[in-house]
């Protein structure tokens, strides 16, 4: 079943030189039980997509989309209140900076209890609620692998290590028993052991509870180990999307190929001491976006036609938008 279906999502940000398209016709489909990776360089608009989905939107943004539905309900048309209700019960977000996404002066226990919905508690009189909440909260903490929950629940965010904070965020995300968890770069700046713990935790949650995860990151290694679908983003445009193994085996878009090649662990044929490949240039700033395919100036295969935005093409589950895809022309 399709949970989240986004078609041609465009988000414009007001600036001094007019409206800039921070997201340009983004497509994203997430089905039930799927781990979907959203990959892209920093500044490619990954976090903005997350914000657009959950509705944490600034006044100076303008959002248009052909379709943006949550289990068939249109997210854009519904009122703020209805949308909030859906987000509260069905979608949870894990942010990239656990410490700054937690209120610095409220104890972690209270913040965790705050997101527990009354409907998730057993039926009981209201004086039992506090106790039930506490029990539920400590269960959640055990589930994410925090042992000394009593001490941690009493502390404030700045008093505890980063990975514990992130585990708390995951516990908070699980609290409402959502259908979809959006993990916005959850392992950023973490040590490798903490990182693998968090990733394992997310994978387990996905397998045990049939929970979909939208995993936003630029850590290809982590993504390839857990995700089954991947959408590649460049500068606010969806470049390529499809099954993880398909993309790895046969990337059609030059950017996807460059991205995969930039990670040495994906290349079995890499001889020792050979230079690592990377795309020339840097990601353009929002003020100086190129027209047409935004990869144009950096693309090794760019030709004159690339000043027009390429249409989305589809081969089974695999979609890409490029005028001159790899592999295709060889046939």
């Amino acid at each position: 079943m399709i949970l989240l279906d986004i078609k041609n999502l465009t988000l414009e940000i007001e600036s001094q030189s007019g409206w800039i398209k921070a997201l340009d016709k983004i497509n994203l489909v997430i089905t039930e039980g799927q781990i979907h990776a959203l990959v892209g360089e920093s500044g490619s608009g990954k976090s903005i997509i997350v914000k657009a989905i959950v509705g944490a939107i600034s006044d100076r943004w303008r959002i248009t989309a052909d379709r943006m539905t949550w289990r068939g309900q249109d997210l854009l048309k519904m009122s703020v209140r209805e949308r909030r209700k859906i987000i509260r019960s069905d979608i949870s977000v894990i942010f990239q900076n656990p410490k700054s996404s937690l209120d610095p002066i409220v104890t972690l226990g209270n913040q965790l209890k705050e997101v527990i919905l009354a409907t998730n508690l057993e039926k009981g009189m209201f004086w039992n609620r506090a106790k039930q909440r506490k029990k539920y909260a400590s269960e959640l903490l055990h589930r994410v692998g925090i042992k000394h929950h009593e001490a941690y629940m009493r502390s404030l965010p700045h008093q505890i290590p980063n990975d514990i904070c992130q585990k708390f965020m995951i516990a908070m995300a699980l609290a409402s028993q959502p259908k979809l968890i959006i993990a916005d770069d959850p392992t950023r700046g973490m040590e490798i052991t903490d990182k693998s713990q968090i990733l394992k935790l997310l994978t387990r949650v996905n397998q045990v509870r049939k929970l979909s995860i939208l995993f936003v990151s630029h850590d290809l290694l982590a993504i390839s180990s857990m995700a089954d679908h991947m959408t590649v983003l460049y500068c606010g445009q969806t470049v390529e999307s499809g099954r993880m193994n398909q993309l790895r085996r046969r990337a059609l878009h030059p950017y996807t190929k460059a991205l995969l090649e930039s990670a040495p662990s994906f290349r079995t044929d890499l001889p020792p001491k050979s230079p690592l490949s990377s795309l020339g240039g840097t990601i353009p700033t929002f003020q100086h976006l190129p027209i047409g395919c935004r990869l144009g100036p950096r693309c090794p295969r760019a030709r004159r036609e690339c000043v027009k935005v390429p249409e989305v093409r589809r081969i089974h589950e695999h979609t890409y938008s490029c005028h001159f895809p790899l592999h295709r022309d060889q046939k």
Partner: protein
Amino acid sequence: MLRIMLRHISLLILTLFILSFFSFSLAYLFPGDPLVNLTGIRDSSEQTYALLAQQYAMNDSLFSQYWHYVNNLFSGNWGLSFSSGLPLAEEISRSLAASVELSAYALIISFVIGLPLGFLSGLRHHKFIDYSLLSASVIGYSIPVFWAALIAILLFSVQLGWFPLSGRISLLYDIPYDTGFILIDILLSDVPDKEFAFQDALRHLVLPSVSIAIVTSTIVLRITRRSVVEVMNSEYIQAAYARGLSPRQVFVRHGIKNALIPILPLLVMQFTTLLTNAMIVETIFSWPGIGNGLIQAIYQRDFPAIRAGMLAVSALVLTFTITSDMVIQIFDPARRRPEDATS
């Protein structure tokens, strides 16, 4: 916590010591003979001069003079006022209490006005109401206090006659001196017509405290607004929205406290500006406070009164500032160190 207290108390003692030294040296910096300045007795005979010099330990070394001075300060012997001939310790404590009372009410008024408006303006950032409040605050901030006070007198006492012109309470009432705060004194006393006296004192309070509060409440408004805007744009507020909490829940549970904590020290510090403004307004309303007293003392070259008054005011401001800083540091949860959760 003990360390914070020790640090602040040692800072307080040290600064007070330096202050006392300054006020001691004032007697030598005033033009003329220090002994004449301090006693006010001119052209005394040689005998009386010698007697006075002995009394003030003038013939000893500077250090023992200072020691003598500090001893006198602690024993409450602050000298006599030239103009009234009364002991200064009592006079200053009376007028200081009057000033503190006035500033305290002004502070309360400015909090009551400034904080809610600041929150409102911060929540409606870049909207019409924000801009209008901001421009109103700029106007309020730019008005000189003395001018505002004079206009207020002209309008509300002279033209409309709503409030009395000056003073602290009508001469009809004789309130015995107890705490120095007139409202409390009235409540404690057993004068006849207590309610009327209270009302009268309140009516006397309105104009001076409001004209002081104008400036401070604009400052409070701006500080609060800035902080609210900052907090509401912070990541954890966005995160709270993303968790599906309603704007009201987000604001009440996470917004208010976080917005208030950084500004509390700033707000408390406004007390000192308030006291300065109060000293100006006092002279206009002939409020029997320390500002009025000091200015009278300066006009009359009442050197002991100037010296003791300055010392009292600066010691009060200093003690207040350092104590409030200490209290805030002790209670601020954001500065709490890791205690039991480091395992």
